[in-house]
C-alpha cells in the first residue's frame, strides 16, 4: 500500500495564508490557529470512528455487496440507509470524505452520497436544543422537508450526472 497525499497544495496555501495573517495581525492569526487546534482535537474521536467504520464496512462487505446495498440497484433500501446514515452521523461533512471516497470507488452511487449529506442537516442529539429555540412544530416540519429534500436531491444529482455522461 502506497501513501498518496491529496491536497498538499491546498495545505501549503492555507499555511501561507496564516503567515500573511501573522504579519497583518498576529493576535487574530494566533487566535485562528488556536481555534483550529481546538477543532482538530474535537474531531480526533470522529476521525477514529470514521477509520474504524470504513474498516468495518470493508471487512463485512466486499465490493459486490457494496454495489448490492449501495449501488445502482440498491432500490428503496439504499435511500433508507443513506437517510438514516445522514441522520445518525456525527461531525463535520469533511470528516466523512475519506470513507465515502473509498465506498464510491467500490460502487457507492452518487445519489446516495448527496442524500446522506443533506440528511445530515437533521442532528438527532441537537433536536431538543432546536425545539427549545424554535418550537416543536417548526422542528418537525423542517425535519420532514429536509428528508424529502435529501431524497429529491439524490435523485436529481443522478439524473444530472447521467445526462452529462450521455452527452
Amino acid at each position, binding site marked *: 500500500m502506497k501513501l498518496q497525499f491529496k491536497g498538499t497544495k491546498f495545505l501549503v496555501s492555507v499555511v501561507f495564508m496564516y503567515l500573511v*495573517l501573522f504579519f497583518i495581525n498576529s493576535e487574530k492569526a494566533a487566535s485562528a490557529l488556536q481555534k483550529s487546534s481546538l477543532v482538530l482535537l474535537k474531531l480526533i474521536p470522529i476521525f477514529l470512528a470514521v477509520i474504524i467504520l*470504513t474498516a468495518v464496512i470493508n471487512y463485512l462487505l466486499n465490493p459486490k455487496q457494496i454495489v448490492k446495498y449501495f449501488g445502482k440497484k440498491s432500490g428503496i433500501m439504499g435511500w433508507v440507509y443513506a437517510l438514516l446514515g445522514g441522520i445518525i452521523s456525527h461531525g463535520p461533512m469533511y470528516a466523512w470524505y475519506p470513507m465515502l471516497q473509498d465506498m464510491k470507488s467500490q460502487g457507492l452511487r452518487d445519489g446516495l452520497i448527496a442524500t446522506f449529506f443533506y440528511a445530515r442537516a437533521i442532528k438527532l442529539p441537537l433536536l431538543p436544543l432546536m425545539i427549545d429555540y424554535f418550537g416543536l412544530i417548526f422542528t418537525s416540519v423542517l425535519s420532514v422537508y429536509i428528508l424529502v429534500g435529501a431524497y429529491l436531491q439524490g435523485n436529481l444529482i443522478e439524473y444530472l450526472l447521467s445526462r452529462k455522461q450521455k452527452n
Partner: protein
Amino acid sequence: MNHEEKPSVIQVLKKATFGFISMSPMLLSIIGLVGIMQVYVTSNMIGSVFGQGMFIDTFIGTFIGAISSGNPSVSYVLGGELLEEGTSLYAVTAFMLSWVTLGIVQLPAEATALGSRFTLYRNLLSLIATIIIAIATVATVGLIK
C-alpha cells in the same frame, strides 16, 4: 467461479488508515480555514447584513451559513439570537440549513474526494434546496399555527 478471499481485520484497518492519512493534508487545510472563518466572521458581522426583505434575507442567510463553520448547535444559538434581533425566520432557517449542508471552505476537499462535477451539482442543488426548504418550512409553520 472466482471467490474473493476475505481480508483480515489488520488489512482492512491498514487500508482505512492509509486512505484517511492520504486525505489528511486536505482535512488539515479545511480545519485551518475553519479557524480563520471563526475569528474573522463574527456574530455581529452576521447580524448586520440582514434586514433586506424576505427573499434577499433568505439568500443572505444561505450564503452566510455556507461560509460559516463550526458545531451546528452554534448555528441554532446564533439563529435564535438573530430571530430575537428581528431577523426573519426565513433567513434564520436558511442560515441554519446551509451551515450544515453547504461549505465553501471544504469545496476543494469535496471535489478531490468525490469529483468536481458531483461537487458542483451537489452544492448547487443543496443551495436551491436550502432556499426552497426555508421558505416552505416557514410558510407551513405559519399555516399550522
